[in-house]
């Protein structure tokens, strides 16, 4: 479904060279929900931009649905952390969600239906004609998620989408992602720096080292599929996974790296 092979990214300009990603390889199966977690400065955003086709890797590559990525893949939607900048302030909520659909060849009635369904799916109704900046942060990120949902992607990339909202809203949005993922059967790659969030959301958590980035460990999250903020987070197993990943991140921060191979 989604395959990252030997990906390397080096930023070069006239004065210096920075190796952001050394060697990253992994696969995400169809319909999987995988979280990527790492310390700040781990090159998470660089990795995500390479996967999204926004940035050309120095070596290696990304394959989405058997097609090598050279530009943004048509079956992929991205939700950015900076919802305030990713939503267009000159367009209403409705038009923001509609805009990507205008680029697709489909009947107008079908477009309207997709916009309506997507807004309903993220529990936003009656704000179609409002502008994004008239809404709270959490609602704005819901609009951004609705825009992604309406696009009918096969792969959904999320780049620390909830880093800028308050804790309560964040919990609600996490549950929303789980619900949408199960309902739409979409493949989700979720980047975060929050260990709890990665364990709560993911079926797998990939722990990244500091830059130049490699993958420290690929952790399977063996928690039940039905997850609730209250019960899941108080399970003993949740605590164990959390502790394990936390210690891995601490190692990463100290500069420890897995042996090459």
């Amino acid at each position, binding site marked *: 479904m989604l395959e990252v092979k030997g990906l390397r990214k080096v930023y070069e300009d006239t004065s210096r060279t920075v190796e952001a990603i050394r060697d990253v390889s992994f696969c995400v199966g169809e319909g999987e929900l995988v979280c990527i977690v790492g310390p700040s400065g781990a090159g998470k955003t660089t990795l995500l*931009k390479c996967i*999204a*086709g*926004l940035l050309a890797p120095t070596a290696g590559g990304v394959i989405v649905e058997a097609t090598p990525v050279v*530009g*943004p893949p*048509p079956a*992929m*939607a*991205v939700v*950015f952390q*900076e919802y305030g*900048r*990713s939503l*267009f*302030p*000159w*367009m209403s909520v409705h038009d923001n969600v509609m*805009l*990507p659909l*205008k*680029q*697709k060849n489909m009947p107008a009635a079908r477009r309207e239906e997709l916009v309506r369904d997507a807004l309903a799916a993220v529990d936003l109704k009656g704000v179609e004609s409002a*502008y994004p*900046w*008239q*809404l*709270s942060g959490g609602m704005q990120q819901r609009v951004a998620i609705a*825009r992604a949902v309406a*696009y009918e992607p096969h792969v959904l990339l999320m780049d620390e989408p909830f880093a800028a909202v308050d804790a309560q809203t964040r919990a609600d949005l996490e549950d929303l992602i789980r619900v949408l993922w199960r309902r739409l059967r979409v493949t989700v790659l979720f980047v975060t720096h929050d260990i709890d969030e990665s364990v709560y959301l993911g079926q797998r958590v990939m722990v990244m080292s500091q830059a130049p980035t490699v993958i420290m460990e690929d952790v399977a999250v063996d928690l039940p599929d039905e997850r609730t903020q209250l019960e899941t987070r108080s399970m003993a197993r949740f605590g164990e996974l959390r502790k394990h990943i936390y210690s891995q991140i601490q190692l990463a921060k100290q500069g420890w790296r897995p042996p090459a191979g």
Partner: protein
Amino acid sequence: MKAAQASKVRAKSTARAFVWLQGLGGLVGFALLLEIVPRIGLISPNYLPPFSEIMAALFKEMTTAVFWSALSDTLEAWAIGLVISVVAGVVIGIAIGSSRIVRTLTHSTIEFLRPIPSVALIPLAVLLFGSQIQSTLVLVIYASFWQVLIQVLYGVQDVDPVARETARCYGLGTWAQIRYVTWPTALPYLMTGIRLAAAVALILAITSEVAIDTQGLGKQISDTESGGAVAIMYAYIIVAGIIGVIVNLGARALERRVLAWHPSIRLDAADAVA
């Protein structure tokens, strides 16, 4: 939230009315000064007739066909020149601004041409078109085009990288990106450019009429001056000033309408709560 927003809107419009009143007070004071200075002989009424005489001359002049055709000639040259400048500034600005190479290549040329005063082109304009409207247009367009171009160039480069990446991720092509991302981003800059260009265009239209005798208010000013009709001359100068004020108010009203979504004009959710 709604009530807070409404009260904020009210507060804004009250503040605006107050500013208007102050501005009006200033004008009345200035008119009084113009009345008194010649009357007490500080300046000879031969050079500066009292304000009341100027106004009387103005009302009388307004009944003549000469006045109205001069007014419409000036406005015509102003409007045609402004439209050409804005269209050219937008098209060329987007074309240059969208490519870094073209931007670098044209930068020094623009910085060389831009400071050349339009009036320096008067001999050239006369040589080419004599005292026809085209001469006025050359000066008007040369002066106002740069105002628009420079603003559009800044605006085009101000596109938020996150907005750009969002557009690319969601499959917007070059044209769709220009229309839905670049254009709205550049719009606030363009509005500033239009406001500046509208004022400059008016200045150059009248300058050209005074200097090269093309038809319009400026020609009336120089004709009445040489004919010794000083009060009428001042009347035309006042008309030129009034047009300037109206142009500026119009440009600001347009700005408020077109940019209702922009942070400088909109009322944020955060604003309404505060």
